[in-house]
């Protein structure tokens, strides 16, 4: 396994550099924004906060005007020992605790929607590829792509409107019933699933089309290969050829692109959390940007990037397991 470990380390190297690039970009961009959190805060007091108090506020939040570079270095050193600083919007709350409150829910939402849309999408893709050019193949791909061409928040709002309000089948806010105490009991879990259903289904709606298409095209490509015609000439049953020979090979490249898909799903998640007021990272990030709360913004951006990188690394391992050709 040594060479595959070598490969994983190499991939880890790439992710480390990508992580560093994201952190640096995310440190400098907000700093270049005109204005600063204290003036934002001052504006919100409208006269109750005397100008003279601004200086005092500035150094409580650590906005000394030392040069940007050593602020960057001190930021990196804090980062390395897991110190994400204190948020200004939620002063004096530590950024890490705010993030932890939201991270769980975002990962839940992303996880469910990614896995479910992947499974359903691949299954449908396999079937319509096997019966390519049939009825299914002319109906499903266009209809799914029509659904996913709606602007993202549009479908979310319509779902919320019809299923949430009009029919009242699903709750339209929060992650669980507010008079429940979070804990690993059946009641809490069902309430969570009940709450996550609408946001997750919007993400799934948007995602299925993509997976289905990818699987369909891969399958059509695989069906034209030699080992499929060889399998056919061996007299194997259609089902066996479809699943064990064609689908198994077609699914492989999709798993490798699974990592990329996480990036796209995250875009959707942020919008979903805003619309459904789901207490994930998305909405907190948006508030942080509006309040120019640098520490919180950087913290959230970092956790999102790190979780994407970690997911990609896990998928690299998954690929190693699935594809014997990559193993020594």
């Amino acid at each position, binding site marked *: 396994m040594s060479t595959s470990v070598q490969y994983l380390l190499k991939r880890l190297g790439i992710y480390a550099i990508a992580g560093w690039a994201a952190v640096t970009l995310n440190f400098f961009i907000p700093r270049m*924004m*005109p*204005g*600063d959190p204290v*003036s*934002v*805060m*001052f*504006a*919100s*007091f*409208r*006269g*109750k*906060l*005397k*100008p*003279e*108090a*601004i200086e*005092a*506020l500035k150094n*409580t939040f650590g906005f000394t005007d030392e040069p940007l570079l050593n602020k960057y270095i001190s930021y990196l050193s804090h980062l390395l020992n897991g110190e994400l600083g204190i948020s200004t*919007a*939620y*002063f*004096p*709350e530590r950024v890490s605790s*705010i993030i932890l*409150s*939201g991270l769980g829910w975002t990962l839940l939402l992303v996880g469910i929607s990614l896995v479910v849309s992947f499974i359903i999408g691949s299954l449908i893709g396999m079937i319509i590829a096997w019966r390519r050019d049939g009825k299914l193949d002319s109906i499903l791909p266009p209809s799914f792509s029509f659904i996913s061409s709606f602007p993202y*928040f549009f479908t979310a*709002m319509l779902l*919320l409107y019809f299923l*949430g*309000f*009009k*029919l*009242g*089948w*699903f709750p*339209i*806010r*929060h*992650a*669980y*019933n*507010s*008079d429940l*105490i979070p804990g690993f009991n059946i009641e809490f879990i069902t309430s969570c699933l009940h709450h996550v259903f609408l946001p997750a289904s919007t993400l799934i709606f948007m995602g299925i089309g993509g997976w289905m298409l990818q699987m369909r095209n891969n399958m059509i490509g695989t069906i034209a290969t030699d080992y499929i015609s060889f399998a056919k000439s061996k007299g194997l049953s259609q089902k066996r050829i479809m699943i064990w020979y064609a689908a198994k090979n077609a699914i492989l490249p999709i798993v490798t692109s699974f990592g990329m898909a996480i990036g796209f799903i995250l875009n959707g998640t942020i919008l979903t959390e*805003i619309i459904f*007021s789901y*207490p994930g990272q998305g*909405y*907190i990030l*948006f*508030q942080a940007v*509006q*309040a*120019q709360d640098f520490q919180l913004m950087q913290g959230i951006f970092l956790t999102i990037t790190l979780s994407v990188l970690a997911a990609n690394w896990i998928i690299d391992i998954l690929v190693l397991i699935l594809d014997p050709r990559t193993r020594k």
Partner: protein
Amino acid sequence: MKLIFKHILYVIIGIFSFQQCTDSTTKETYNGLVVSQEQRASWIRNFNPLTPGGSARWPTSAGIYEPLMIYNSMKGEYVPWLAVKHEWNMRNDVLKLVIRQDVSWSDGAPFSGKDVLFTFNLLKKIPAFDVRALWTYLESIKLLNEYEVEFKFSSIYVPGLDAIVGQTIVPEHIWSIIEDPVKFTNPNPVGTGPYTEILKFQKQVWELGKNPNYWQSGKPKVEKLTFPAFPTNVQATYALINGEVDWAGNFIPAIDRIFVDKNPDKHHYWFPRAGGSIFLYPNTTKKHFDNKAFRKAISYSIDRELITKVAMYDYTVPADITALSEGMSRWRENKKRKDSWNIFNREEALSILDSLEYSFSNKNSLTDKDNNEIFFEIIVVSGWSDWIRAAQIISRNLRDVGINASVRTYDFGAWFSKLQTGDFDLAIAWAEKGNTPYNLYRGLMSQKLVKPTGEISVLNWHRYGNAVIDDLCQRYEKTSNQSVIKDIIFDMQDIFIENLPAIPLFAEPSWGEYNTSRFTNFPDEHNPYAQLSPNNVPESLLILVELEPVK
């Protein structure tokens, strides 16, 4: 204490419910009076009333803790609270406060002047807490006896009274042993206010129970307050419409159609105009705007009726010529004036422009003496859609008089820094608030506050300075005699109307909605004992103690 940032959160996402709002099963049933004031994705446990940045939960500074006195903007007078009476000495440089007796902290400990002394000295020790910058004009504070406190001023500054009596008092026996009060989140608060007991605190909802040892016997009548987390203005609006919220301070467009019609006899709102006005600031350092006649021409050409109807959903009225709203009408000197630039009069605007030798080019756009066209940019905060619409109407009005004005929106940080550094032509923004117009007029015209363009100036962004105003301010700060104060204000008012340093557009309303199906005795236009909006801290404390459950 923290006025919610209505405009920013209001921008997020519209939510919807159908006309006849079915009693959907998703209605959360909360017990206790549900208040929607803060808009956060999830609650953070912080009850430190002195936190700089005001990120403590509402109603910490006027509900769990209490100030010395509360200024009632409706009645225009101080309501004695923890302090019963205040007296100035002859030279107005020493202030004596008599502290209320038989008041105790929620843990039973007695409340006395010692706590007041401790709180003000804490402000002196930690400048970050002194948000009203008292210690710039205070010299010292001492106890005459257990229930009398004396403040010695380093310079005579009568307006300092607002800041002093508005200070929230914290318990000495608890706070003296906290080594870093700035970062102290005060999870289990001990206060003198009507509600001090934290019954339940989760990410999505928290509850605040009655103070067992509250000094006003028989009050408050409501058992407990409940705060579900509404991250977006939209979610809060929906809950309000769905009858899940009893008292809120949200901005809701077309409120009659969305909110009131749902349940006319229970859903009410009241948007009193007690504050100042929203202004169109011309940068007086720039060509054309340095001439007050030109400023008046611009003011004449603005259709304030259309702005209030379209941009502000008829929630407010065009600004008065004194820029004071009805809540401050007692400071308006109503006398015959030759200026009437707050009335929409395009002909008058055009005649003024003619008299200033502006002429019209072929494309009927205005050209100045050396006939190059006039281009202005109106900057406004992106996301604050009511102000953006106002700016769009103004730009259309200016185009009708030949001035080419385009609307540019900027993110709040960028907008505010352009405003403070004077890097703008026209800008829509608020004005300095205060119990008397002194703050408003000083902020608009004080010569001392004028800073060169490029340098951050916290007030007087339009850089208009008038020396007369400064000596008026000097005299105002020295006197506590009400009639003298009134004359000074009227003089300032005349200078403002004559010079029009900034163009008032419409009065700024305060948003307040309530639902009387479970609780009653909210203030409204027939019983205006205080401003309804929970956002108006500390005045909201007056309401907290008056509310009662429906029998």
